[in-house]
């Protein structure tokens, strides 16, 4: 029962995927290399930068700190799927409006992590927003515009009674 190659079946962005994978392959490498979903990025491979952030069974996780073998039966969502579903359209628009991204490498991870905070509802303070995003490294923006964007979306969503 212990194998170097593992059979897995999971869904990725709603699509069923069945593959035989190398046990050592991380989730983010599988998504990028086997499924060509390159929207999730690899920045450090030790769980610190957050560029690999994806959703597994509805929760944000580090794609570099999960083996794809662990995802048998899991529901995986990447930035491509979440974006195409329209779930974060207001957040993407706010990021665009405020130039809360420059090179874009941290952005998918940043958006998914921010969305997890926003789904809790309410109007989090700038301090709470910074704390929630404290595990997502951005080298370009200095974070100020990102906090502005998330804050504005939180207020808008709360205002709409969502």
């Amino acid at each position, binding site marked *: 029962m212990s194998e170097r190659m593992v059979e897995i079946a999971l869904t990725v962005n709603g699509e069923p995927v069945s593959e035989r994978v190398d*046990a*050592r392959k*991380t989730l983010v490498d599988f998504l990028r290399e086997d499924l060509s979903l390159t929207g999730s990025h690899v920045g450090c*491979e030790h769980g610190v930068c*957050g560029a690999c952030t994806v959703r597994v069974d509805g929760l*944000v996780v580090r794609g570099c700190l*999960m083996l794809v073998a662990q995802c*048998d039966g899991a529901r995986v969502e990447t930035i491509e799927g979440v974006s195409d579903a329209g779930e974060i359209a207001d957040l993407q628009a706010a990021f665009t409006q405020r130039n809360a991204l420059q090179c874009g490498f941290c952005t998918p991870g940043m958006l998914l992590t921010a969305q997890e*905070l926003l789904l809790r509802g309410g109007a989090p303070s700038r301090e709470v927003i910074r704390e929630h995003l404290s*595990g997502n490294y951005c080298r370009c923006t200095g974070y100020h515009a990102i906090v502005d964007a998330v804050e504005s979306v939180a207020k808008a969503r709360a205002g709409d009674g969502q």
Partner: protein
Amino acid sequence: MKPAPFAYAKARSLEETVALLGEHGDGAKLLAGGQSLIATLNMRLSAPSLLIDINGLRDLAGISQRDGMVQIGALTRHAEVERSEVAAKHAPLIAQAMPHIGHPAIRNRGTFGGSVAFADPAAELPACVLALGGELDITGAKGKRSVKADAFFKGLFETALGPQDVLTAIRVPAATAHSRFGFAELARRHGDYALVGLAASARADGKGLADVRLAYFGVDSTALRARKAEAALAAGSLDKAVEALDGDLDPPDDLQGSSKLKKHLAGVLLRRVAAQLSEARS
């Protein structure tokens, strides 16, 4: 980097897990949250031949309160403990520590038991368990046993867990009206491992404190209790307790800070935590 090759097995039961550990000895490692393990594998700091995935053992997850104890299943995710009303009400010291552990994505996968079993000397939870005088439930080749927290943390990344043992649950005394808790951590950036941290518990005894337990983290190869300082604090003198730390703590110089810095900060944290301990619980 990419990990060196290994085999993978998804454990279907605790018994199977123990058996697999016995079969493969040092070559096998348990995969729970993976937030520390997979990082070390990615850096090729470790090259096990087999990973035993225990995430399917759902019986090992969950947090409950019963008979004056809070029981936290080893596989309970940090995020679950963070949101838990049981923890907030009955294990407030742990609830206070949770937001300091890594970041949301880490807490969604990392497990309480994983943190305790890995026993990083700068981690929060081993110190909390030590501060609460908790007990660790273990299943191994010879069956079940419990180890008190004071006897669990032995050395750098070394605990009472043997090569064929699985940590199944952590039990801590539930808070009472007389319980006092304090927690403070200094880290250069939010979510980093602590530069120095202190988890503390005590029992209000008239105007003073009894059963003082001061568990420091980030100052040695394990979380450790500052027993001379505990005694001084219980005797009623904060200043003497801070002085006593000199005899309790001998931190090494490391990349985070010098020994002198850590000792100094340990004293600062003691003052801050002592103030928390003297406040009645609301």
